[in-house]
């Protein structure tokens, strides 16, 4: 029965199937494919944080080096973005699909790739670090201090102090806008930087000094308008919806679907906005709320985005109150 020639051919075929095919596949994927690419391709597995998060979670690239990042969502739908300031948002990547982006970073610094779609209870921990290093000083990555947070520190302002709840005050920016022409507004209240570092309650004191005969409720509304003067753009409301609404709620009232899972109850902005300084909110967003489950967004948002977000919180606070 021996069929030597047939057996030899079959053995060759078997060796090819069992050894050759796997070797070819692995060799192509991990050897030939990267070698043929004209720039570096990094495959990143994206899993919910409970299942491991991003892998790898640190990618290092040089300024001016073109790189392709390929994010493979393996468990649930993730939204992949890279920030701050890179403007990269791959949108939804469904399970089994791959979202990829090719770019050439120009500024050294630490960036974050992150999930911006509610993917699990620990969604907020789903982050990875993109280190863009200057080849002339490869040892270090630029870490710039934030002047607003530095100023708070210098003034010994306690960022983590409990917010004071406004009682008996119902500011309404729409009424305030209508009353604006009837009051004398001092220049400081027109200055966005001054407003950022002062609460509306402090602004009311200044406004009352200049308008002693105007009823307080009118001045409250005017202050509400001034503190939410910047009209929200679609980009900022989208930023809020993607990153904040899950816990703070669509209207910022602390009633998002994730509110039940956080260590502390998420802030309801309309309740605390009157006595809260904007730079404290800015710092909270950038740095995170220590021990509250409020994550930091300083690695995701630019300073400008964060300031606009603070304005948006005021807008939510003083609308439909």
């Amino acid at each position, binding site marked *: *029965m*021996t*069929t030597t020639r*047939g*057996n030899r051919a*079959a*053995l060759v*075929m*078997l060796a090819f*199937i*069992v050894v050759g*095919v*796997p070797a070819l*596949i*692995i060799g192509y*994927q991990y050897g030939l494919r990267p070698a043929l690419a004209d720039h570096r391709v990094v*495959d990143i597995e994206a*899993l919910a944080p409970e299942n491991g998060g991003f892998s790898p979670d640190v990618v290092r690239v040089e300024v001016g080096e073109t790189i392709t990042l*390929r994010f*493979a*969502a*393996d*468990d649930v739908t993730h939204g992949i973005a890279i920030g701050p300031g890179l403007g990269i948002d791959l949108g939804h990547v469904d*399970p*089994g*699909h*791959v979202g*990829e982006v090719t770019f050439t970073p120009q500024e050294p610094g630490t960036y974050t790739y992150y999930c911006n779609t509610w993917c699990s209870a620990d969604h907020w921990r789903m982050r990875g670090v993109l280190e863009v290093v200057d080849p002339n000083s490869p040892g270090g990555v630029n870490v710039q201090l934030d002047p607003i947070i530095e100023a708070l520190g210098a003034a010994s302002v306690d960022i983590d102090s409990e917010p004071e709840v406004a009682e008996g005050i119902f500011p309404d920016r729409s009424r305030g806008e209508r009353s604006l022409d009837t009051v004398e507004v001092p220049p400081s209240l027109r200055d966005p930087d001054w407003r950022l570092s002062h609460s509306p309650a402090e602004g009311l004191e200044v406004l009352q000094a200049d308008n002693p005969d105007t009823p307080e409720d009118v001045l409250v509304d005017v202050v509400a308008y001034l503190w939410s003067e910047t009209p929200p753009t679609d980009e900022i409301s989208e930023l809020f919806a993607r990153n904040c609404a899950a816990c703070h709620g669509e209207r910022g009232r602390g009633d998002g679907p994730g509110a039940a899972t956080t260590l502390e109850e998420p802030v309801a902005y309309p309740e605390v906005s009157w006595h809260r300084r904007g730079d404290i909110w800015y710092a909270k967003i950038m740095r995170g709320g220590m021990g509250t489950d409020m994550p930091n967004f300083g690695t995701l948002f630019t300073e400008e985005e964060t300031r606009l977000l603070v304005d948006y919180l005021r807008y939510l606070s003083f609308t439909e109150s």
Partner: protein
Amino acid sequence: MLLSRAFQPVAMLILLAPFVLAVMAGLLGTSAGNRNFGIVFVWIVWWAVLMVLLVPGLGRVWCTVCPIPAPGEWVQRRGIIGGAGRLRTRGLRWPRRLRNMWLQNAGFLVLALFSMVILTRPSVSAGVFVGLIGVAVGMSLLFEKRTFCRYVCPIGGFIGLYSMAAPVELRVRDAQVCVDHREKDCITGNDRGYGCPWMVYPGKLDRNLDCGLCTECLKTCTMDNVVINLRRPGADLAKPVRGNRIDEAFKALIMLACSIIYPAVLFGPWATVKEWAAIESFGGWLIYAAAFLIATLVVIPGLFWLAVAGGQRSCAGGLTVRRAFNEYSHALIPLGLAAWVTFSVGFALTNGSYALAAISDPFGWGWDVFGTRDVGWTPYLSGAAPTIQAAILIGGLLFSIRTSLRVGLRHDPSGETTLAATAPIAAFLLASTLALLWLYLG
């Protein structure tokens, strides 16, 4: 072609390639099952082809080409196309107490209990494939011939059972030729082929259950007495069951029970049950496992036992309930097969489009070999599927009722007691069908 020594090994080799690819994809590829070749091509494409085309149309033909026992068999034979000399095996006889389908039943139940994980997690799936090959190789080294396929393989068990309904059979032309032929090359083997690897004597083969269609006896028979016939579907089902084959009856009952439980878990509205089946919590899975085993081993067999006993009591047919339970269990085969075809048709139409993406990017590495990587999920014939499924189920019900009547008529050719004996069984079959129709049509 069937007489060529190269036919079966080459077919196995060809199928070994996608099998190796499936294992590799499971171990190295994306963990998203719907984009992983290992999941998509085994549990959607292969399963649909097996259950919708191969088993109903060609019976055990999958066992002819199955790559799982191939490495073990080639090691045993010291060659692929044909070996030389003695088989490399301890040649142990399989214990007499295990020469039945109980291990296959148990193996299938174990796979079924973990199926939500096996069917969705590529690495687990790959582990099962490698495990099956490992067991097959190990058994080939220890035991004679295809002991693994005949007595252990959980897939071969139900393929064998349902192949009895297929319109294809391997038989001898004239049993007397076998009786008169002293050499019995089909058992001992000769220079043209091996003695039956499935340890079956073709001369007495009257059912498809145990014949693996390996084609060795076609090659070794010097009397040209072995043939493959086309026949009336289900020709084996009304034949008498030799001996006590309660294992076979339970195989039919387990398969029918699973064909009801699977769609209930996968497509039913009970999210909690699905979570339990997916082992999202161990406690939940324990509840699911207990309920599953009670349903498959106690409730459904118990109801069928009551139906058989009720029929026998009312007709005084002269059969013991145990004997009738064995005999009438064959009536479950057409409906069980129809239920699995229904399940597989729905599964394939709903999820078949994943195959287009998976064939272009089998590992989820971003390849696009055939330009179909980004083809989205598209259910096919979603409007017509329920009608097709209902037609298959009703066809299976009628076939099953007819089988039970044929079994009844064999025991009472006058037909006087047949209706009384089979009415409770028909009611059991009808209730099972209604449950399935409810699950598929809502």
